[in-house]
């Protein structure tokens, strides 16, 4: 006779219901979002869905989903906390699965009827004749059992300690497994403790401020927090009764009186199962949706899917991949300097995801400097500025602009073989920069064409940032036309805002350089000669040049040749925006000046003679804010130190 033994107890029901609901809801959501991908994104997926990039995607899923390397780099303690949750729980599941599988395979090898009797008496195992119903008690005593098949439903590894009390001592790994599982549980507890500390004293974990969560999020969080203590209690009680615990659960179990806790065992396992179920059911509606969504996001990003100007399925993946960790709050100048705690990216993402009032979403999206600080910091790598641009997209207001006047401009120039120089609107307010650039061009013996000397057409980026996409495209068309027809070989621009636009939004056939890159090139090719003075200067990384385009080293290399460059506390990708970034139209001048002062304070924390920047906008902002320090552009500093 062949028999099957199946572990089962009523308390697995809540768990199974929770898992089933979780699967159904997640599948429904994911299928819906994938259906909402726009045509361009679909084409990318069709083209690349299976390529070598999958390997790098899996590697990144492992690094970011489990190890949380990016958070580690930002903040060690926060990294430990997130890793303890993610890696700890993941390993609990994996090792638990391995433990139950190996042990039950061993039991199967034993193939002994006595063990089946034991299990039968335990009451939590069904002994079943193959192909038939449940066997009534002890009817198999008279028949010869040829094969015992241990069924391993997937839930058995979750409630493993309850179902398997006594493993034969010949199975040596049993003790090792229970100790490893206890170690992992302790590891998760480390994360839990840090999370509780973070709520009360966030500064200990290096967070100035944590995210304000909604009630639903908090509810789900407490469900998550109760899972692990309940598991510990349940396992300890079982360990107390049957002595099958590891170093941690057995020690706690030994503190209990078996007579007292015997009645509690079942209810504790039930509680544990119910809390798991509650967490699973709330998961798709809370921030914990990021656990699975981040993996999808990493895959889509790796195969080259990009955010478009409209809300699409990919946006939904981005919105749901946000874990609301609050890292974006730490660097935000609006939070830090103006005490505005409502408009950070985490709240934008949440309000779009929860479909809050359009007015509120618009308010949050508009009140942002677009300085990219949060996008750089985001450990999930969500393209936060793209999401802001999607909300800012003006829709009906964005008809074609009334820019026919720029075409009336008969100003054309034959610039074959020359360098086109685009000062940008803001450089017209800081003529020192453009004059210095002309001086440098002449010193290098380079023929150039100053294309917006008399009249300038905006590059289109300010309109683009405010969501007037058609109008921005119209201006870009005009500028591209002018540059391509002139026959210039290279475009040099003084304004990082224009630079980013030319680099990312235009499709120019000629190379585009910011003037810091260009001067660095001239110096490296020995086309201009400079002397070094001993003035101490600090360098401000403009948002659009540094975080926007990744130009950090060129300006520093130039400055090291001509002056004595000092380091500042927040520099490179951590630099503080000057406050006048064109991305924001909501801030008043007073508020902008406040941010500007904070930025200046960072630049002048060490004694310096001059504040140097590479952006006409930042220069103008600093000049307005300080009389104490001279503010120069890199081009001016170099032009001063030229040796003819």
């Amino acid at each position, binding site marked *: 006779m062949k028999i099957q033994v199946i572990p089962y107890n009523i308390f697995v029901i809540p768990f199974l219901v929770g898992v089933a609901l979780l699967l159904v809801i997640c599948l429904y959501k994911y299928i819906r979002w994938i259906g909402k991908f726009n045509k361009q994104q679909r084409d990318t997926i069709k083209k690349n869905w299976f390529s070598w990039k999958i390997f790098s995607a899996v590697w990144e899923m492992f690094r970011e989903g489990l190890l949380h390397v990016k958070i580690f780099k930002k903040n060690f303690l926060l990294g430990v906390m997130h890793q303890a949750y993610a890696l700890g729980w993941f390993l609990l599941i994996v090792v638990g699965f391995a433990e139950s599988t190996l042990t039950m395979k061993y039991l199967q090898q034993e193939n002994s009827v006595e063990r089946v009797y034991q299990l039968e008496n335990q009451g939590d195992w069904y002994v079943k004749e193959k192909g038939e119903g449940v066997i009534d008690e002890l009817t198999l005593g008279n028949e010869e059992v040829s094969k015992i098949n241990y069924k391993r439903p997937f839930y058995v590894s979750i409630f493993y300690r309850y179902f398997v009390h006594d493993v034969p001592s010949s199975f040596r790994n049993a003790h090792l497994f229970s100790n490893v599982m206890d170690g992992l549980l302790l590891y998760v507890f480390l994360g839990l403790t840090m999370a509780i500390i973070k709520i009360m004293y966030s500064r200990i974990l290096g967070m100035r401020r944590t995210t304000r969560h909604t009630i639903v999020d908090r509810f789900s969080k407490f469900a998550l927090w109760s899972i692990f203590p309940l598991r510990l209690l349940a396992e300890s009680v079982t360990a107390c009764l049957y002595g099958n615990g590891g170093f941690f659960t057995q020690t706690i179990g030994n503190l209990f009186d078996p007579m007292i806790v015997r009645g509690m065992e079942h209810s504790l396992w039930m509680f544990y199962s119910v809390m798991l179920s509650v967490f699973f059911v709330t998961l798709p509606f809370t921030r914990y949706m990021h656990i699975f969504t981040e993996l999808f996001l990493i895959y889509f990003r790796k195969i080259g899917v990009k955010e478009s100007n409209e809300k699409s399925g990919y946006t939904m993946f981005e919105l749901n991949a946000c874990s609301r960790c609050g890292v974006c709050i730490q660097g935000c100048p609006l939070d830090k300097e103006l005490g505005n705690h409502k408009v950070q990216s985490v709240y934008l993402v949440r309000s779009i995801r929860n479909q809050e009032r359009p007015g509120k979403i618009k308010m949050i999206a508009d009140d942002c400097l677009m300085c990219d600080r949060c996008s750089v910091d985001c450990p999930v790598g969500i393209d936060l500025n793209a999401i802001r641009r999607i909300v800012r997209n003006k829709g009906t207001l964005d008809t074609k602009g009334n820019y026919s006047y720029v075409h009336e401009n008969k100003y054309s120039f034959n610039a074959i073989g020359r360098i086109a120089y685009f000062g940008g609107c803001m450089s017209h*307010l800081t003529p020192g920069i453009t004059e210095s650039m002309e001086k440098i061009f002449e010193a290098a013996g380079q023929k150039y064409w100053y294309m917006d000397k008399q009249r300038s057409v905006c590059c289109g980026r300010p309109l683009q940032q405010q969501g007037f996409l058609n109008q921005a495209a119209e201006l870009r068309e005009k500028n591209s036309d002018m540059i391509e027809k002139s026959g210039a070989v290279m475009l040099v621009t003084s304004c990082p805002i224009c630079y980013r636009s030319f680099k990312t939004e235009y499709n120019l056939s000629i190379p585009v350089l910011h003037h810091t890159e260009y001067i660095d090139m001239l110096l490296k090719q020995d086309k201009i000669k400079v002397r070094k003075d001993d003035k101490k200067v600090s360098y401000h990384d403009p948002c659009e040049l540094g975080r926007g385009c990744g130009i950090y080293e060129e300006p520093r290399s130039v400055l090291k040749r001509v002056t004595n460059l000092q380091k500042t506390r927040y520099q490179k990708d951590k630099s503080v925006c000057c406050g006048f970034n064109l991305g924001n139209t909501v801030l008043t001048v007073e508020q902008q000046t406040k941010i500007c002062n904070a930025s200046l304070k960072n630049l002048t924390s060490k004694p310096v003679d001059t504040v140097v920047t590479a952006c006409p906008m930042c220069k103008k902002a600093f000049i307005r804010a300080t009389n104490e320090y001279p503010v120069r552009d890199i081009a001016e500093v170099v032009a001063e130190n030229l040796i003819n």
Partner: protein
Amino acid sequence: MPDFGFSIKTARTENLDKVSLEKYRELLRKVPSFKRCFQCGCCSATCSAQQYTNFNIRKVHTSFRRGEYNLLSEELKKCMLCGKCTLLCPRGVNLRSLIMNMRQLLEEPVK
């Protein structure tokens, strides 16, 4: 009359009984810094669009202030939002916000 390139403006009268200033009041609520404007014209002087054409941002917001909304919508589309006016304004008026809000308000039907 000979064309000097400039002329004296013809006299105009505004019938305040017929003009609705509702949109202007709404604009002030949205951009309070506009209250500080003393119409010096710095915004127009520095304007990138003004260098090409007779677009005059000062004229536009002055008309808006008087409740003359005709043709303003088309006129405002000439603005490139480059932000020079905002940076130069001696009174700290947030002109970029002003322009965007004027556009928004002109789209909405009159109450």
